């Protein structure tokens, strides 16, 4: 594949580490800022991104241009607005944003300048996972350099547009990745999600119009502005445009992440790029896009990894990084691990999530450890049914938690029953 076919990662993995401003420019960087700030109106940038059909890479897949278009356009100079990069990557099984942050921080910075210009926000914030120490150092260094060179600061390229970026290192909570909780965290509060309306685009950080975009989403922008919407749309194989960073973890030969055309079949990712399952293991099922997506079973491996197709298959594209369950790993144990995560990471604001998830976790633990009771399965089904649909809990955390549970209860029914019947895990937790 040529560099232009994998624009996001072209500059990643250089022997000397991430490029500096000059190297980034030599390799084609900064063109987008030049083009946008010199030749395009903010609305033209929004229109271009809308035409590119870029969809959010943070998990929900919302149209990026459309999201921006909700930002009020009244006299910009008098109004504080914020452009926020969601770099809180904490979804288990997901490691794509770290790659982009550590590998090429200037790409994110350029994307943020473009996005900031489009919505006329003067303030950029990178909400970074607190554990990403290397990314923090590299981002701070890149920001300082970009500032020095003049890519950040007042009046960039004499355009009259000024933009600053601050990095906020999170105190650590999965829910901070949820965009409204992220805003609450930035305000120095317990990161509880907020109700909508107001949508962040209208009333976000400190009540000011704010756009929250995922790191990968933002990293696409320089390339879209530089190469155009048609080019970007053509990158995808199916209905979705662009490339996507896909990845695989679990018992495969070569776990990793790869930038591939949007719509690449899952089989190709698992078998070709990840090298298939390790010797002695068979694929049992997988979570296609992170811990909060529903299981697909091994037979569904030919699904195209694009928003619509994965949804049709009964799950979500999510972050696009798959977690594989092999035949020697206990599905009940895996669900217990997942629900332990979700229970721990509940923010504690709403009842069903705060008190329902720990119950689920304990039921799974009991079943896994051989003390399950027959009606425990009913309780688990109740929770999946009552918490699964959106709107029952305050935010999407609990529905996310119920996606693997609900699908897993169906898919692994016999495993559950065997656990309860035999009063032990028929497999050992890990082979």
């Amino acid at each position: 594949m040529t560099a232009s076919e994998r624009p996001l990662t072209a500059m990643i993995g250089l022997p000397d580490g991430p490029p500096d401003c000059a190297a980034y420019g030599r390799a084609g960087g900064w063109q987008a800022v030049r083009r946008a700030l010199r030749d395009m109106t903010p609305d033209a940038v929004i229109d271009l991104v809308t035409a590119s059909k870029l969809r959010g890479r943070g998990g929900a897949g919302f149209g990026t241009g459309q999201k921006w278009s909700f930002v009020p356009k009244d006299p910009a100079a008098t109004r504080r607005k914020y452009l926020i990069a969601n770099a809180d990557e904490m979804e288990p099984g997901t490691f794509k944003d770290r790659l982009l942050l550590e590998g090429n921080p200037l790409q994110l910075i350029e994307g943020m300048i473009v996005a900031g210009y489009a919505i006329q926000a003067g303030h950029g914030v990178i909400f970074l996972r607190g554990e990403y120490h290397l990314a923090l150092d590299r981002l701070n260094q890149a920001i300082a350099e970009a500032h020095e060179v003049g890519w950040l600061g007042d009046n960039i390229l004499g355009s009259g547009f000024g933009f600053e970026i601050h990095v906020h290192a999170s105190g650590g909570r999965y829910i901070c990745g949820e965009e409204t909780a992220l805003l609450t965290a930035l305000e120095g509060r317990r990161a509880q999600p907020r109700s909508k309306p107001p949508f962040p685009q209208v009333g976000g950080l400190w009540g000011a119009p704010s756009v929250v975009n995922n790191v990968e989403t933002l990293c696409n922008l320089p390339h879209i502005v530089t190469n155009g919407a048609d080019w970007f749309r053509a990158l995808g194989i199916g209905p979705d445009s662009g490339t996507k960073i896909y990845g695989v973890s679990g018992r495969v030969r070569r776990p990793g992440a790869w930038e591939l055309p949007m719509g690449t079949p899952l089989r190709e990712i698992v078998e070709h790029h990840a090298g298939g399952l390790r010797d002695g293991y068979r694929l049992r099922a997988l979570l296609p896009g992170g811990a909060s997506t529903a299981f697909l079973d091994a037979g569904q491996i030919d699904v195209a990894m694009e928003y619509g197709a994965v949804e049709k298959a009964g799950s979500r594209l999510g972050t696009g990084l798959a977690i594989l369950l092999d035949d020697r790993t206990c599905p009940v144990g895996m669900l217990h691990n997942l629900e332990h995560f979700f229970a721990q990471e509940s923010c504690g604001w709403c009842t069903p999530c705060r008190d329902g998830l720990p119950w689920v976790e304990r039921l799974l633990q009991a079943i896994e450890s051989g003390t399950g009771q027959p009606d425990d399965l009913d309780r688990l089904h109740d929770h999946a049914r009552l918490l699964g649909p959106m709107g029952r809990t305050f935010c999407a955390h609990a529905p996310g938690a119920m996606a693997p549970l609900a699908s897993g209860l169906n898919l692994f029914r016999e495993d559950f029953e065997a656990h309860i019947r035999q009063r032990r895990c028929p497999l050992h937790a890990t082979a």
Partner: protein
Amino acid sequence: MATILIDGRACPARTDENLLQACLEAGADLPYFCWHPELGSVGACRQCAVKQFSGPDDKTGRIVMACMTPVTDGAILSIDDPLAREFRAGVVEWLMINHPHDCPVCPEGGECHLQDMTVMTGHARRRYRFAKRTHRNQDLGPFINHEMNRCIGCYRCVRFYRDYAGGEDLAAFGAHDDLYFGRYEDGALENAFSGNLAEICPTGVFTDKPFSAVYSRKWDMRGAPSVCAHCAVGCNTIVNARQGSVRRVLNRYHDAVNRYVLCDRGRFGHGFTTMSTRPRAPTMRQDGLPVPVSIATALDRFAAMAADGPVVGIGSTRASLEANFALRALAGPARFSTGLAQPEHDLTLLVPALLRATPARNPSLHDMEAADAVLVLGEDVCVTAPRLGLALRQTLRRAAYPAADAAKVPRWMDAAVRMLGTDAPSPLLVLTPAPTDLDPIAATTHRAAPDDLARLGFAIAHRIDGTAPDAPDLSEPETRLAGSIAATLRAARRPLVVTGLHHASAALLHAAANIAAALHAAGTDPALSLVVPDGNSMGMALMGGLPLDAVRAMAREGEIGTLVVMENDLTRRLDAAALDDLLSAVPHLVVIDHIATPLAHRADLLLPATAFAESGGTLVNTEGRAQRFLPALAAELPLQESWRWLQQCAQAAGTANAPDWTDLDQVIAAMAREVPALAGAADAAPNADYRLDGRRLRSEPSRISGRTAVRANISVHDRPLPQSPDTPFSPSMEGAYATAMPGALIPFYQVPGWNSVQSLNRFQQEIGGPMRGGDAGTRLLDHDRPHDWHRDIPAPFTPAPDAFLLLPAPRLFGTEELSTLSPPIAARATPATLRLGTLPPGLQDGDTVRFTLAGERIALPIRHDPTLPPGIALCPPHMAARAFATPVRIRLHGNDTP
């Protein structure tokens, strides 16, 4: 008005409310926890789930949280839907996972919202079989118990305490299912409204500590509507009593006054009623010692005294209108004193006159909450009228409404509205000599001596309306400040000016009135609120009488045979020398009181009166609202209401036209005839002959038990209960009770299925609106006099090199006379200090200084407070020197430290 369909029933609903409110107003039983009518919606507990359908053809519907969903015309919803029911039962089941199920030993039991909601959802069987988590509890001080294990994580406590009341020392800690609601460390809750947690928390985490110590079930107590007497706001309360003693005070909702919230002074101040030192029998001084006597002997003694010469009566601003009127009737209007010394007497009488003559609204507390600019001039309302200060705090919440409206966020969507209001400018402008609790949220604060604040006030008025007189010789910064405040107030639609008698300054009152009048002339809709000191100061102002100074003059002239002092500790009004002068010139001193005051110890005849909980009467609050309190306990002879004592004294003395009243209503009727300004007080509440469905109202919940059992060691027979002629209540559980009872006659809130205070929803016309049966009380003041500018502008305050102007700095706890006798309040009172802005040479923070104050030589530690204006000192009134209440100049005598 919209119409919504609830389970097929068409119900009217307002489009500015949410579906939960609409359902409750429609009388539906829809459970909830995190929503609170005064706190709005945040969607945390998920208990109020209902099914909403998009149209008549939608058969599937969608689960929504009623409290987070606005009413829309034609909305179709179902509470009864099986899935909605299952989800709600699930929510209670989740909430109960860690709950200790300790209802039998929980003080909340029987009036617990969690119990009610658990029953309502039908959750009855525990299916969770794993271990419960446990918490360590905290000592939160003398007011509130803490039992965190009962927490259901609804976040009401922190939302009330922090967001609503501005408290800083309570927070939510931890995350997921390991939440903790408490303080950073053990210690008394600092906020003045902490007691409300007992009512706000829907379960038994925060409960009333003094009440728990002598604990009773709600159904074992009698209730009576009452009015708080611990400041002039006049919050409406419910008094609960059992076995002859007051057990607790609860909030009684009044739409325009206290709404859902009482201050801690009001809630925990009732302890004086159960003091062991309380006078319980008439005593006569014989050979210098007080000797208990019978009522008849006491009255004979009074008759003998009265034969010795004219009777002069000294009334009280902490006693009811009826008690004062009875005294006035005994002594005659010309020999009746307000019990106030000048200048407080003059200023108190000035207040209603000013309110009547100023073209501005005289606002209720609820009205104040809607002000879009507030000037606080001189008065520290957070201590002189705490609930009023809380109302002013709410103006900030309203300041967020424009941003919320613009973002199309409903105003009850609490968290979102507060967030959108982050940068909304504060409407509060606080000009006071010393820092106040409102300062942190004020747009402007300014420190100056009272005279300088008054001058600033005059200057502000002049800048709003050029015809108002200007204050001469303002400094440059003062001129600028006056200009900017004038501009802010003028730009408001509903500006509010608040001042009061805190610094006994007529100039502050006049300046405030000028500002209000100027704002009126400038075309805004201004309000003027004047804060008087005591629970019935305003009633006394309307009744009128002589200042204490006049009584002293009469005594000096030998014109007093018997001085009757009623419910007034003159040691707080007159310094020791003045009081000695007065008493030595009076042959007989009669004291009527329900507390053992220093003055009572000097009485020749002491008549034990009932306290508020054992009597009925009327108080007029600072807004001129006459409000009736009714007895929760029968007065047991020889305790009698002051008015009964006075009426009997008049009869015994053979006074001409001695009244022959036998019940409270007769006193009120006589007062209405003789004091026209108080005629409206008769309408403050229905008379004792009020009947609902032809029956008296019951004062006890229908399930009252133990009435006989508690005295089973004496007798197992039911004992006939005394029937008070002063109230329309029966003394028992026999009688009528309905949600449409007059607001003035609500003895407790309870409806089937709703045993907690949350049942209040059923008694309101609409949630947060007036009571179904009409609000309590009646307003006596409306402006009806011609206006003229006030022109008495004081000279600038000039600090003297060797003296301080000592200003009274009342304490939330420890200043007000009655509450200070209540043990939990006393426990929160801190020792007096002398606060100085500038330290005189040779003195340091913490040094003790001596000075003469109100005739007493006192020594106080000093506290340096650099925010105070130069030349100003602060000291709590009545604490260091008993009679200190109004500003005086003092000279400090040297360093007393070794």
